């Protein structure tokens, strides 16, 4: 188990390394455009060259990459062009806001997805199964921005019960979180439900469930004690991997509702060509995604007694 964990974390570090090379190649390999992005388009050629020289951009690319990576590892992401402060000063509070939004959404989506998935999987092909499947296809077909428009059309403009934006101008307000969370849950629950359903349906076909039913155990007890334990192993991985999708979803939702989180920060950064901020956001997003993937793998082997790595 320990060796397996070490190996998983090793792969994770290697992945992060390659991701950093990719991000560097995409955003920093062309020094001319870096200078233009940092200093603005209305600067003279001399100004840019002076800036490049002073900030070490005349060094070979490999040196620049290694220095850049070193700074990244110790948490020095450079200065944001747009906010005129170190990137880390804006990034961490925004990330915390997104963690709140994403955490609540993931929790609710998982509860709904697991419950409906189990109900659907208990009798494959039954009326409930059909209903859940149709519901899941319908809601996952609506892009986040579309359900944001539908929901705010209903709950903000037609029946004004919820605020239309979630800027949190007067301190943290849970009511402003309702719409963003709803949008994320609508898009995400279906996938969890479908995976849970498939896993549950598979377990219900096994011999030990048939045995339990035939020896006369109450149906509820069969489901609770025999089926659920085995059926919920696979969805655990799905929920963890869902975090990767959620990181995409929060960008749309935060932009749509002006929520001051990590997604809207990355969006603002990309609109303003705020290159260091884009890099930091990208690296942090990938780190979160890779971390959850690694934890999902380790958790899966821990939960599933049939898989043991020496």
């Amino acid at each position, binding site marked *: 188990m320990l060796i397996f964990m070490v190996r998983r974390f090793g792969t994770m570090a290697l992945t992060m390394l390659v991701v950093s090379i990719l991000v560097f190649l995409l*955003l920093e390999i062309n020094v001319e455009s870096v200078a233009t992005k940092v200093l603005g388009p209305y600067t003279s050629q001399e100004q840019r060259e002076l800036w490049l020289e002073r900030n070490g951009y005349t060094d070979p690319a490999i040196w620049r990459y290694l220095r850049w990576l070193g700074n990244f590892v110790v948490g020095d992401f450079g200065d944001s062009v747009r906010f005129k402060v170190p990137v880390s000063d804006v990034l961490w509070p925004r990330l915390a806001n997104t963690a709140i939004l994403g955490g609540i959404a993931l929790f609710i989506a998982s509860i709904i997805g697991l419950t409906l998935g189990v109900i659907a999987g208990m009798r494959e092909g039954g009326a409930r199964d059909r209903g859940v499947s149709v519901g899941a296809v319908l809601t996952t077909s609506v892009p986040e921005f579309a359900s944001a428009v539908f929901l*705010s059309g209903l709950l903000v*403009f037609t029946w004004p019960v919820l605020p239309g934006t979630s800027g949190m101008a007067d301190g943290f307000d849970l009511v402003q979180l309702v719409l963003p969370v709803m949008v994320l849950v609508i898009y995400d629950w279906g996938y969890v439900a479908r995976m849970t359903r498939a896993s549950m349906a598979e377990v219900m076909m096994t011999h030990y469930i048939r045995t339990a039913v035939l020896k006369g155990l109450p149906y509820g007890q069969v489901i609770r004690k025999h089926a659920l334990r085995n059926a919920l192993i696979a969805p655990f991985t799905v929920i963890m991997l869902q975090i990767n999708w959620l990181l995409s979803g929060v960008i*749309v939702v935060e932009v749509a509702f002006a929520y001051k989180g990590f997604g809207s920060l990355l969006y603002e950064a990309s609109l303003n060509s705020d290159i260091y901020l884009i890099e930091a956001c990208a690296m942090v997003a990938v780190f979160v*995604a890779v971390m959850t993937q690694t934890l999902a793998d380790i958790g899966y082997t821990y939960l599933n007694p049939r898989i043991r790595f020496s």
Partner: protein
Amino acid sequence: MTDQAVSVPRRESPLLRFVKGLALIRESWVGMIGLGIIVFWSLVAIFADILAPFPPNQPGLPLAPPGSASLDGLGVYWLGTDQLGRDTLSRIIHGSRQVLLYAPLATFCAYFVGIPMGLAAGYRRGLTDDVLSFIANVILSFPVLVLYIIIIATIGASGSNIVIAVTFASAPGVMRIVRGLVLDLRNREYVFAAETRGESAWRIMLVEILPNARGPLIVDACLRLGYVVITIGTLGFLGLGLPPPDPDWGGMVSELRQFAIVDPMLAVFPCIAISSLVLGFNLLADGLREVSLRD
């Protein structure tokens, strides 16, 4: 009489068999609904010039509510107008062309890149597989929209750049699926037979293995098409999609949404358009999967 009795039934052409396989979708009503929606939008895209009551970029009465008459009284804005007075219905109709051009194109490119990668990884295994799988894992570890934003921020927003970004982000997923299928198919007897005949590796991959992996790949392509439609819409919504003024569903939503205080219905229509098209692809995928599992 005897002549007829000994005549061998003619083997159907591969294309005909392929089409007949797809025609099985008739047996799934879910799939038929999906196919119907897709055919509907395809016809709308083809006949956009005839169907649209106004030219898509012609200004008129700004922010007219749905159903109001145009300034000259000759036409009706069935779904209202935007802030420049352009007819929403006409723009939705013309916008279908953009989506139905770029979504299939981008998906096709993703498959064009992903299939050879997956074939090579699954058939050759060993180092080729390790390297290709690692590259795929790296790209797939990006939250997709983050990857799109970085790519678009670097190369700029345009139709062809969307195709490039989608190909880059989706090809690894295609590769993974193809690889899994090939790992299963490569131990079939017809593959051993082809190897014994001395066929080249690429011929085996492309002629022997790939056609037998088509079922799951077609289902995956439908799901992926739906997802690419969402992606193009989302990029348009974020202002990173196709450049104005030509209509693009996602971009229309983000423009009309600003005027929700005037009339919240205005932004709803392009949302319905995009959701219905995605639903069409998802239902078709469900139907195809259902039909393919049946036999």
